[in-house]
């Protein structure tokens, strides 16, 4: 079982960080933040994978416990919902910025701020 999935999530995490630092448009930064969230969630669930384990639910198919580690999954459940909460706030903040400064590009915003102050 090679660590491919770790490398995949690390690369996507790297792309997310690259996106936040390199993109000027604020909307793109919010999207990169969401990419980072997804990458970290995949990494955490992958940390809990047991090679021959089943989905951690007692059912007719898996009546006896031969499960994957359920705790990282419970943590990711919370992390996903927190990610959406932050995202919803970020979107409404972007609408505010666009309404006040007319654009989402920090350079144009900086010029308008000089004029305003």
């Amino acid at each position, binding site marked *: 079982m090679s660590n491919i999935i770790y490398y995949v999530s690390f690369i996507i995490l790297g792309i997310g960080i690259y996106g*936040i630092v390199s993109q000027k448009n604020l909307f793109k*930064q919010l999207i990169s933040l969401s990419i980072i969230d997804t990458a970290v969630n995949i990494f955490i669930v992958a940390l809990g994978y047991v090679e021959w384990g089943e989905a951690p639910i007692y059912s007719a198919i898996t009546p006896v416990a031969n499960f994957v580690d359920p705790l990282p999954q419970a*943590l990711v459940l919370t992390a996903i919902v927190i990610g959406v909460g932050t995202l919803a706030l970020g979107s409404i903040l*972007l609408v505010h910025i666009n309404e006040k400064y007319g654009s989402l590009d920090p350079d144009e915003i900086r010029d308008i701020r000089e004029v305003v102050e």
Partner: protein
Amino acid sequence: MIALLIAVPLAFAFASIPHERLGRYFLPFVALFNLVCLFFFMEPGQILEVGRWPAAYGIALVLDNVSYPFLIFVNFLILMMALSATLENRYGTLLLVLTAAVNGIILTGDFFNSFVFLEIISVIAYIVAAHKDNALGAFKYLIFGGIGGTMYLLGAVSVYVKSGTLNMGYAAFITDPLIVPTICIFFLITFLVELKVLPLGLWAPDVYSNGSSVTPIALGSIVTVSLVYLFSRIFLNIFDLPNPQLVGILAMISIILAELGALKQKNLGRALSFATISGVSTVVTALSMRESEIASAAYFYLFNDVISKFILFTLFAYLGERGFKSNKTAGIAFTFASLSVIGFPMFAGFWAKYYLLKALFQASSYALPAIILIAAVIEAGYLIKWNVELWYKGEDTPENTPKVQDGEQDSEMENEANEVEESFIPFGAQIVTLLLALTLVVIGFMPSLVHNQTMSIANNVLDFRPYLDLILRGGM
């Protein structure tokens, strides 16, 4: 019993949805209830296992000699804020949830639970930061806070993977010390962002200078105190700080940069926010040295810095850059607070700096004292400049422009003068700022009041044994 500190604010927050103004009236009573509960019904040395699951499996709330004084200080600040700030319609509900989250982050003994409370505090901070049409500052804070939160999550899960449990006491006991530094890097990034150490704290000046009476106090004092607690719990009590010299140097650079930044600010709000950054960076530098003397001095410094910034930001929110001509009491409180920040002899600030320098000289480390003195000089520079400017704002303008309507320039002076008359400070804010200014003076005369507390905190924080015994013993 301990869970009431978190359940009651949440219950009131949920109950205050129907009417917008309801939350504002619940907040002072909830803060008072917390303080009464803390003083009369709880004493340190307790553990509460939520849902009666053993500490390693479920979540345990730990009330020991370190979290007890911090809880009292934070709830006292929340009560002061409830009285002094003018809250818009829904902000009361948000601050109730903030009370629950801050109590939670201080009490919890579980890594992932502190991540959830950290996220609650961050979400509320983004909303409060957007107050007074400051959406850009709030968005920048959201991006930094988002990265910080994800790093904390990675740190919490890697602790679980290596130690098998999420409980702070057990995890520290089990993980082998070799891998702790790499895991702590994740926590370190979060604290560098949240505690505004400059390269990662660039969001702070925009957020704190939006001129609202809620944002700098809720974020600058209440959240900062609870995050300093979490920083010292994780890096002094449970794990040890990865390469502390590097962190110390980074924080020292941040002090100097913040002071220089504050010096050249035209706007009082931005100058104060840079001053806050330098204050918290000083505390972080001192804490990163892991000496009980220095840590106790750091907590004293934090106490003085938070209270004086509370006064300065509240008065800035109400007065803006109008002078103190019309309300002398506010002026006195403002001057007391700024003198205390500089470290003037008869104020708490003097003792804060004195204990810190004494402890540092005993530990024979001379880099930080030099920087603290330089910072004090720069602080004295711009704070006195602002004080002088604000005190003599109203006087000199009427002399050189005789009272005759002869030019636009004159009418502009005219409406600025009578604008000074109109600017009133709500009664609650005046009382609170005066009360806090008095506490600064009282502690200036009797520093042992606070110093004994900080000594006991520092001794307890650096000693992991009682914390683990508390968790192993289990309890209620």
